[in-house]
């Protein structure tokens, strides 16, 4: 009964997602004017409305893509994890619907209500395992930070609304025109903080790696793959649209801030991800990294936009950011779904207890590998395309801007390069330790392949990864409307795929000389040909036999104990960046009769997230301590109560009695 309901619910969500995707594609492909729908009045003082333009449509597409995959995937996932399936289905629907509403909102009340609805629905998903204290704590942290973010947004919106005497975005836009520079920037910073919390920008990211893994995996996929993007939508909407000055480039300080935050998030996110053993936590930290990459592109677009640089450079940067938004949704969704299969089939999330799954769950393994290659920005998949564009934009933009901003772009470029290398290392570890080698626990040894629907969900996203990687022209056409709306000028495809749909071009080089063009498609084709050739060479018909033998372990009988663990794999990095990790390790050693005979050797180590320990822990401690301090002032003595009343009266008489 419930089973049927759950299936129906998810089918409904799937259908809705497909519908939205089709509509969004049509909208992005066509040239229909923005849609505006007025909602019936719910509250006095307020008129609510929906409006969809290019940007909204693009983000709707992002939402729809992952939602569709998750909706296929979820039901059979829930069968293995039966608690509260009904609630989960409903809250999934609420969650996705609210995200879509945020992207469609035409006024700030709708936006805010949908925004908070999104938060609450995802909170329900996070704490869905009500017995688990960790997820409860994670949910609390998530809610509190989200709430703080909302408070910031509230101030921004209300300040605008006061000048606008209205709530719909056109009015707010008009009101923002009348702002002076400093208050405009102040509002932008507030909005950035508000959205940054949800987007997991360092140092506001601490809730993210706790909350995302706590949810059911397909929900984590949606949170990491999509919800962060909804926050980014807010940033795009505010910086380029609502708060933008009429006929001047965006203030340089905005671009600087975003670029710096982006670079920091990218590097710190991936560095922390590298040290995780919990597969889903690792993926969550990678979301911080990827948001950073997106913000790098965004910040650059802010710096270059408004005729500070050649228009096509700004377009390139923004297109890179938007494309990476879509790409990250695809591969991060794929990876989380894969991790979910591992978790549900084996029952553990800790890589150290996994291993050897590639032979037991081949589909999951290969799809996860595909996602890993994509997220490590390795050719020929989609991750590489958007990162290539970002690099080009940084490079050419850096030259064009020169000076401090240019240098900043250079720094961002180097950090981005570092990020790529770290990500590759991290996923070599994640894939290798989880799926390869020998199983390190009974859980892993008895895991079985997950049912077809789950695989189908992953295949959908995998297909997206490949398509976005190999056919950039198609993806660029999706970006035309958003880019030209936000920056004016020609759309993305006119700039990036000027030399044909299969060729990526980075135009606008300083001395106008020929731009750089590459064709991932051609390279991939060559790669495929060469691979076939090499395969032929490798399996040349020869009499020499092919036999199996145990792995070489210096002559001892190999066992799972010989396999390299995740901790060991990440150790070099841990040592290189020790200043940041502050690693802690303690080794207990039981020695036998002679000090050279070691009975047992147990190792425990951990690294810290500096933002958490330095910032949040201290603030929390301070608040609690002062609260306890204040509390001691209320002795339960009635005389104190009376004295307070008397004192209050006298003081307010002294204060207010005379005009």
């Amino acid at each position, binding site marked *: 009964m419930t089973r049927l309901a759950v299936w129906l619910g998810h089918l409904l969500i799937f259908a809705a997602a497909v519908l939205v995707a089709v509509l969004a594609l049509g909208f992005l492909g066509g040239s229909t004017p923005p849609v505006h729908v007025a909602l019936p009045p719910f509250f006095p003082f307020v008129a609510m409305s929906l409006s969809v333009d290019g940007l909204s449509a693009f983000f709707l597409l992002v939402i729809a893509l992952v939602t569709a995959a998750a909706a296929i995937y979820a039901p059979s996932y829930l069968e293995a994890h039966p608690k509260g399936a009904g609630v989960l289905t409903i809250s999934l629907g609420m969650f996705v619907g609210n995200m879509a509403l945020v992207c469609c909102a035409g006024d700030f009340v709708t936006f805010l209500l949908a925004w908070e609805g999104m938060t609450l629905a995802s909170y329900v998903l996070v704490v869905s395992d009500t017995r688990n204290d960790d997820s409860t704590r994670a949910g609390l942290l998530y809610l509190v930070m989200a709430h703080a973010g909302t408070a910031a947004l509230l101030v921004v919106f209300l300040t605008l609304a006061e000048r606008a005497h209205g709530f719909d975005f056109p009015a707010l836009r008009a009101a923002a025109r009348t702002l002076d520079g400093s208050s405009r920037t102040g509002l932008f910073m507030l909005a950035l903080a508000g959205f940054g919390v949800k987007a997991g920008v360092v140092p506001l990211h601490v809730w993210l790696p706790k909350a995302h893994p706590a949810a059911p995996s397909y929900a984590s996929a949606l949170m990491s793959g999509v919800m962060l993007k909804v926050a980014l939508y807010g940033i795009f909407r505010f910086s380029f649209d609502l708060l933008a000055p009429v006929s001047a480039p965006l203030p340089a300080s905005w671009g600087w801030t975003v670029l710096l935050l982006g670079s920091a998030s990218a590097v710190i996110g991936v560095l922390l991800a590298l040290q995780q053993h919990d597969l889903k936590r690792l993926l969550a930290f990678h979301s911080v990294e990827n948001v950073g990459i997106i913000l790098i592109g965004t910040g650059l677009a802010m710096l270059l936009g408004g005729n500070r640089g050649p228009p096509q450079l700004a377009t390139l940067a923004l297109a890179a950011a938007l494309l990476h938004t879509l790409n990250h949704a695809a591969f991060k969704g794929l990876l989380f779904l894969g991790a979910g299969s591992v978790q549900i089939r084996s029952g553990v999330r800790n890589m150290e207890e996994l291993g050897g799954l590639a032979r037991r769950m*081949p589909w999951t*393994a290969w799809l996860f590998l595909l996602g890993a*290659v994509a997220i490590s920005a*390795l*050719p020929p998949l989609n991750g*590489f395309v958007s990162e290539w564009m970002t*690099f080009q934009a940084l*490079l050419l933009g*850096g*030259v064009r801007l*020169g*000076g401090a901003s240019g*240098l900043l*772009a*250079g720094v961002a*470029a*180097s950090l981005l*390069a*570092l990020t*790529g*290398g*770290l990500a*590759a290392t991290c996923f070599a570890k994640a894939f*290798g330790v989880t799926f*390869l*080698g*020998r199983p390190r626990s009974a859980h892993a040894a008895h895991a079985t392949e997950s049912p077809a629907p789950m695989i189908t969900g992953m295949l959908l996203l995998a297909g997206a990864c490949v398509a976005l990687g190999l056919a950039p022209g198609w993806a660029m056409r999706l970006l035309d409307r958003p880019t030209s709306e936000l920056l004016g000028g020609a759309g993305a495809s006119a700039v990036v795929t000027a030399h044909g749909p299969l060729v990526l071009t*980075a135009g606008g080089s*300083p001395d106008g000389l*020929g*731009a*750089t*063009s*590459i*064709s*991932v498609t051609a*390279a991939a084709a*060559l*790669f495929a040909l*060469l*691979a076939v050739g*090499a*395969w032929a*060479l*490798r399996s040349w018909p*020869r009499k*020499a*036999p*092919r036999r*199996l*033998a*145990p*792995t070489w*372990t210096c002559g001892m009988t190999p066992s*799972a104990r*010989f*396999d*390299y663990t995740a901790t060991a794999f990440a150790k*070099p990095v841990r040592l*290189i960046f020790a200043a940041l990790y502050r690693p802690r390790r303690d080794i207990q050693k039981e020695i036998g009769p002679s000090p050279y005979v070691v009975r047992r050797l147990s190792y425990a180590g951990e690294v810290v997230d500096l933002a958490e320990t330095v910032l949040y822990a201290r603030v929390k401690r301070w608040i609690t301590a002062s609260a306890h301090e204040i509390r001691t002032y209320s002795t339960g003595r009635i005389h104190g109560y009376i004295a307070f009343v008397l004192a209050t009266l006298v003081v307010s008489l002294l204060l207010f009695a005379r005009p």
Partner: protein
Amino acid sequence: MGGTGQIAKAVAQAGLIVLLGPLVTGFVQKLKARLQCRQGASVLQPYRDLSKLLRKGTVQSDSASPFFRAIPVLVLAATVTAAALLPVLWAPAQPATLPLGDAILLIALLALARFLLAIGALDAGGAFGGMGASREMTVGLLVEPALMLAVFSIAVSVGTTDVGMLAARRETLTLAWQAPDLLALFAMLILMLAETGRIPVDNPDTHLELTMLHEGMLLEHSGPGLACIVLATHTKQLVTLTLVAALFLPLGLARGTAPAEIALATAAFAGKVLVLATFLGLVESSYAKLRFFRVPQFLGLGLVCAFLALALRIL
């Protein structure tokens, strides 16, 4: 010039690199032997090893996944694709109509090869593969950004990251060398040592488990598979040398297909590679291998130089 012509040239140059790769290794080995007052094996020894390996049978780890067999192939393919992106003999006159790729793609392809190799090493299980993979990836994550920055510092001066165009443009600029170029070159030389897996970062000759980086990952490969990987290694080495050459000594590159031009270009190429290979040999026989955890400092130097080069260019 049509797209097909370009592809043809690219494939030809790639083929050239693949063919000459082992020779370079042989040359370096010979040079080292001489410097150690040994006779040393012939410069053709690498070819013999390869043919021997190709004829041998395969012993595969029983704990490896089916994917294990595909890895050498993919590694080789990735490396050769990277080779196809380099200007060996020809420098394109104008932007290609059907471009293949630029320096970023090249570095990314090398990274892909490294990634796959690491996966393969972890696949068999066992400590050495894991250790090799971990260390190789660590070195890689330090080398890659530095390499990119060095390339960028050149690229920003001419506004493109297409290696061929870079070479052509810098040739026309008649090597207007400035401080950034020197810094970049210095960085590049350091990185070259790491990227070709040579002393002081790695030691291609050792098979003592605890000191292996690259070799550690190859332990479980055998026969034709190993052959593919070894070939890939040779190729990668020559690719790195050629990249350095293209960036810093873009001399005598042919424009057309006239025999004379080609001859000149070949000679120039041989000369450049010879110089760099000699450098490799000299360093390798005059330095000791660094402890692994000293390597980051060494590479960090390269990283800093590359970054300074880029910064100076932009400012």
